[in-house]
């Protein structure tokens, strides 16, 4: 049960039940759809970027507790961050959930998102945690495209 508690921490359960920034953003400068064809998780991600800073970010969609809470925590964390910081955070987050070694500094940069470290014990669930991040990258690089984690 300890790995499960590690995976389903209170913060994750809370964000699953009451996802933050769960709305369509109007106006927005960037938008992308994310879809995990294996489990049917779907999300729409909206961003308002001004002068390379994420002024606002939101999402809607349906998915498991891991994917919903990951999207919720991501939107909360990225508000006010620069695009270059965001891209670095994507790399660190990806390394964190896939179990690739990251430095103490990088872990600290991830702040609250570090709770997703538990996902690395569950390889089948990595795609759940990373769906919102892949969708984010798509929104920033090629708006209006569907991100797929498979």
């Amino acid at each position, binding site marked *: 049960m300890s790995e*499960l508690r590690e995976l*389903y921490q209170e913060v994750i*359960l809370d964000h699953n039940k009451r996802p933050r920034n769960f709305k369509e953003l109007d106006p927005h400068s960037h938008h992308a759809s994310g879809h995990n064809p294996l*489990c*049917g*998780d779907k999300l729409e991600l909206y961003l308002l970027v001004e002068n390379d800073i994420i002024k606002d970010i939101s999402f809607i969609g349906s998915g498991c*507790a891991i994917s919903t809470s990951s999207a919720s925590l991501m939107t909360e964390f990225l508000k006010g961050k620069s695009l270059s910081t965001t891209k670095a955070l994507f790399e660190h987050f990806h390394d964190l959930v896939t179990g690739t070694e990251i430095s103490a500094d990088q872990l600290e940069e991830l702040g609250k998102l570090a709770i997703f470290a538990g996902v690395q014990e*569950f390889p*089948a669930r990595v795609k759940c945690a990373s769906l919102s991040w892949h969708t984010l990258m798509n929104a920033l690089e090629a708006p209006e495209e569907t991100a797929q984690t498979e």
Partner: protein
Amino acid sequence: MIDVNKIREDFPILSTEVYGKRLVYVDNAATTQKPKQVMDAIQDLYSTSYSNVHRGVHFLSQKSTSLFEGARDRIASFINASSSKGIVFVKGATEAVNLVASSYLEPILSQGDAILISEMEHHSNLVPWQMVAEKKGAELRIIPLKENGDLDYDALPNLLDDSVKLVALTHMSNSLGTINQVEKVISSAHKLNIPVLLDGAQSIAHMAIDVQALDCDFFVFSGHKIYAPTGIGVLYAKSKILQGMQPYQGGGDMILNVSFEGTEYNDIPYRFEAGTPNVEGAVGLAAAIDYVSDLGLENIDQYERELTAYAYEKLTAIDGLRIIGDAPNRGSIISFVLEGIHPHDVGTIMDMEGVAVRTGHHCTQPVMDCYHIPATTRISLSFYNTAEEIDIIIAAIKKVKELMG
């Protein structure tokens, strides 16, 4: 009578542990575990008889050929086919459907024709028909699903007419467990001389199949869902139909004479079996068929029905649990959703309790759309499962609720 404790000794994997807990394997609709008898048959083939089939004059080639063709005869008698010539070895049910789509249907399908399937089909009995329909400008018609998980047979008269060139229907739904009234569909279709393909992927391991009594024109199944190895499956077709069909793939073994001017194709069923076949798969499948036949399909059916009824009773007593599909005649498959908890979270937590369930759309996205859900958790039972395992499953579901509460 099923002596489940004795049976479980035949399946080594059932006594393994996952995360320090005894494995409870209830993902049998995805694939079944293998008994020692099947492993022994394959081991024995490799140890004493293995060679390539059909071509050699040497001792081992003849021995392999006789085991391979013996497997074909065994399968024919198991589903009561009138002749072994109607048994084509394929990779699995998916390949069998694709074979019929390209060798039977495509050459006769014209623009404006139709193919009739149902709303509860597995993607493997949907996408191949959609592909050929798109290619030829034909229409894909759908027998609708009712809220209770049964097909809406009242819709049949309006769906069946002369433009329909084939009906393809699952015998038993892999996501809802519904056993369809295939006899009704077959007789309605035959009145208009429309052939019917039955997808037996789910039914084959759970009920006695008699293709002559069913009078289906095609019947397809995969070996791995009936305790045989992966990579072997069967297409049964009425010999008369098979005789008129074009080859599927070209290569060795499917020919009589080859020259650069042209090729004379081999007789059925070999015309559809290009290349070296899956000899060990066929031998393993024959051994699996012997195994379930020794247990008796009637005994299996009765045992699984009782176990499913017990699981159904225990599951419906759980607060917030909704069973998806409640057709009067169903097999040993139960799909459910837990209020407010996504099936993938259910699957992960149950897995940590040692319980292997399936979560997702089960390759039946139209079924999920019909119930307005993204996915379900599915329990699919075999004759090697026990009432005690059902209790472990129930406890695991309660743990899910507690943790995700």
